[in-house]
């Protein structure tokens, strides 16, 4: 019996024990991968203060969906603000763009609205408003307060500028015919341009109401005006009475303009009355120089073309003239006084746009070569107010458009009193040149001749035969009357004449009969004519 021999088997190279660490490794790798795949971006947001911000508690929300939590809050390096670091969800990655905005939402109570009441319980949170710029941004500067308009809201954002500060503040309404169509987003004073810049936002679809022809004016408070027709009180909506507001509209008589883009600039007028005074947007400056007295010509005086107002006088350019004269040592030469005028083509019913101004300027250029001149006219004899009139003068000396301090100039002509003086002088010259002496001599001679004639007439009238003439005339008329009496229907002559006429008629009848017969029978003169028997009238049976 053979002893059993042990069979040596080669054991497996890897122990089952290793299964556990491998599983752990795989799980770990999965967790790392999962964590890496779900982990969102980490961002830094700069705030002025950390009011309302709490580490690990303050949430970042977009459309009320939690996007992340503030991890830490620390002071910045300059110590003039804080930087909050926040970890966001991965899906927030796409929202982080160059112009993405953040602000802290807390409970806020103002005159016109109450917002963020829910934060009283839940605590403040950071609102995210995604932008549309370049993506991949991680550092942001938070807004001090919530923007009034959503970033993605449809509408139109415009800039209004005003030289004077008004009562309009952020949040005020923008009105169209009294209806709220937008709001004022911000008010800033531009120190360089020395104007107040208002950013307004007009909600869709009302932004279509805005075009290049509309004007914006301050519609705040109550407007009281007194005129010839009594007192007039204008009150806007209650909002605007207490809070102020901006109104806009197209001035009457102006055609709608072209659509405008975002951030277009408009002037903010003080009131609607100011717009009515200057309703046009486009215009151009000219200079007219007068050598006569400009007394009574005030800034704002009308500039007219044949009685139609086409602009206004801006100012007398005395300072500029003085400076120019000092520069070229021409002081004391009695130079003409330049007057700056502003002409608006839209007043001549041209469209209120730049192209009209260009075409108007070309028209002026052609007009000047054809005798167009500016003149100083008296508007009122009582007040002595003057205005500038533009018209054509056929006898004007040739001239063309020049420039004065970069302004084009329109040549002037002296009219009014000066023109009258010239005309009077011309008439006096003509009177002087009349051959008055010759005329008087001839007239004297004619009068002498007339005297002679009248003397002759007297002589004739005093003559006996002339006096007898009237008596003779009366006698003649009396005889004529007697003679005519003989021709009256009862007279013998009349009856004789009547009988003669009767005879004549009968003869004519006979001639007519004869010619009739001869027409029918030409030889009737020689040969006997058989007159056909007349048809016999027959009595009724």
């Amino acid at each position, binding site marked *: 019996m053979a002893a059993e021999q042990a069979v040596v088997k080669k054991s497996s190279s890897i122990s089952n024990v290793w299964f556990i660490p491998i599983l752990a490794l795989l799980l770990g790798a999965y967790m790392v991968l999962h964590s890496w795949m779900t982990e969102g971006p980490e961002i830094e947001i700069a705030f002025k203060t950390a009011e309302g911000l709490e580490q690990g508690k303050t949430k970042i929300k977009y459309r009320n969906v939690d996007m992340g939590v503030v991890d830490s809050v620390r002071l910045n390096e300059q110590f003039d603000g804080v930087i909050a670091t926040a970890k966001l969800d991965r899906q927030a990655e796409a929202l982080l763009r160059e112009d993405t905005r953040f602000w802290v939402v807390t409970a806020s109570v103002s005159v016109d609205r109450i917002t963020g009441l829910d934060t009283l319980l839940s605590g403040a949170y950071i609102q995210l408003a995604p932008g549309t710029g370049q993506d991949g941004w991680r550092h942001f500067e938070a807004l001090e307060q919530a923007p009034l308009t959503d970033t993605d809201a449809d509408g139109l954002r415009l800039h209004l500028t005003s030289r004077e500060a008004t009562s309009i503040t952020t949040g005020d309404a923008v009105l169209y015919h009294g209806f709220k169509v937008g709001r004022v987003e911000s008010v800033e004073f531009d120190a360089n341009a020395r104007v107040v810049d208002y950013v307004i936002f007009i909600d869709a679809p009302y932004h279509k109401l805005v075009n290049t022809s509309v004007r914006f004016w301050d519609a705040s408070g109550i407007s009281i005006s007194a005129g010839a027709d009594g007192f007039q009180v204008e009150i806007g909506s209650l909002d605007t009475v207490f809070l102020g507001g901006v109104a806009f509209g197209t001035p009457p008589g102006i055609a709608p303009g072209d659509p405008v883009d975002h951030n277009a600039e408009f002037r903010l007028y003080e009131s609607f009355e100011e717009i009515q005074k200057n309703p046009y947007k486009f215009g151009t400056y000219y200079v007219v120089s007068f050598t006569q007295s400009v007394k009574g010509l005030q800034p704002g005086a009308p500039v007219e073309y044949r009685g139609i107002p086409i602009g206004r006088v801006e100012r007398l350019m005395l300072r500029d003239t003085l400076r120019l004269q000092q520069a070229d040592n021409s002081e004391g030469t009695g130079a003409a006084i330049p007057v700056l005028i502003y002409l608006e083509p839209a007043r001549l019913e041209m469209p209120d746009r730049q192209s009209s101004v260009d075409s108007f300027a070309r028209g002026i250029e052609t007009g000047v070569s054809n005798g167009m001149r500016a003149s100083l006219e008296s508007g009122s004899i009582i007040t002595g107010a003057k205005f500038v009139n533009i018209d054509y003068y056929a006898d004007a000396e040739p001239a063309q458009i020049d420039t004065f301090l970069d302004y084009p100039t329109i040549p002037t002509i002296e009219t009014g009193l000066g023109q009258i003086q010239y005309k009077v002088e011309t008439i006096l010259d003509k009177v002087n040149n009349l051959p008055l002496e010759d005329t008087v001599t001839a007239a004297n001679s004619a009068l002498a001749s007339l005297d002679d004639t009248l003397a002759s007439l007297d002589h004739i009238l005093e003559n006996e035969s002339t006096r007898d003439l009237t008596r003779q005339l009366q006698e003649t008329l009396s005889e004529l009357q007697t003679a005519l009496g003989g021709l009256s229907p009862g007279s013998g002559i009349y009856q004789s004449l009547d009988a003669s006429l009767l005879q004549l008629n009968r003869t004519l009848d006979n001639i007519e009969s004869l010619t009739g017969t001869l027409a029918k029978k030409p030889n009737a003169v020689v040969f006997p004519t058989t*007159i056909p028997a007349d048809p016999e009238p027959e*009595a009724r049976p």
Partner: protein
Amino acid sequence: MRRALCLLPVLLLCACASQPPSPTYYLLRPAADLDSAQLQPSTRYTLGEVSIAPYINQPGLLLETGEGRVRPAALHLWAEPIEAGIRTYLLQEISRLYGRDLLPGGTGDQRINLRIDQLHGTLEGDARLVAYWWLDGDDGAMGARRFARSQPLAANGYNALASAERDLLGQLAADIAAALQAPVDEENAAQ
């Protein structure tokens, strides 16, 4: 040839020897008895214009020979121009029937005007008279009146036709005289 030349004067003389028929003339005058009593002139009326249609104004009496055709008689003529004859006849007849003389050129301020439109014999054996008359100066109160009547001929011939036409003119005069205001009113008015 010579014989022919001799015959010519003979022929001509023969021609002249023939006697043409002589025409008959008719006069329009009232048949009433001549009244020597003088009528007083009317102070109200006078006879104004008497006009006749041009076709009537010719010497011969007119006879209708067919539809729309008349023929003036060549041998039966009015003794005076028909216009004068009608005027004289009417003046006398109206004056007689009215009782006042409507002298032309009288003091009457109302003028009786007439227009004779038709006066001729018809195919049916009638004489026809169509006339219009009106007063001037009565402010149009009366208006124009029309007279249109026919009178059957009493016998054949133009004499009967002239007589019938005279009768018709007499009826017209009677109509006019009847339409005028009575002479009594005239006197009252004068008083």
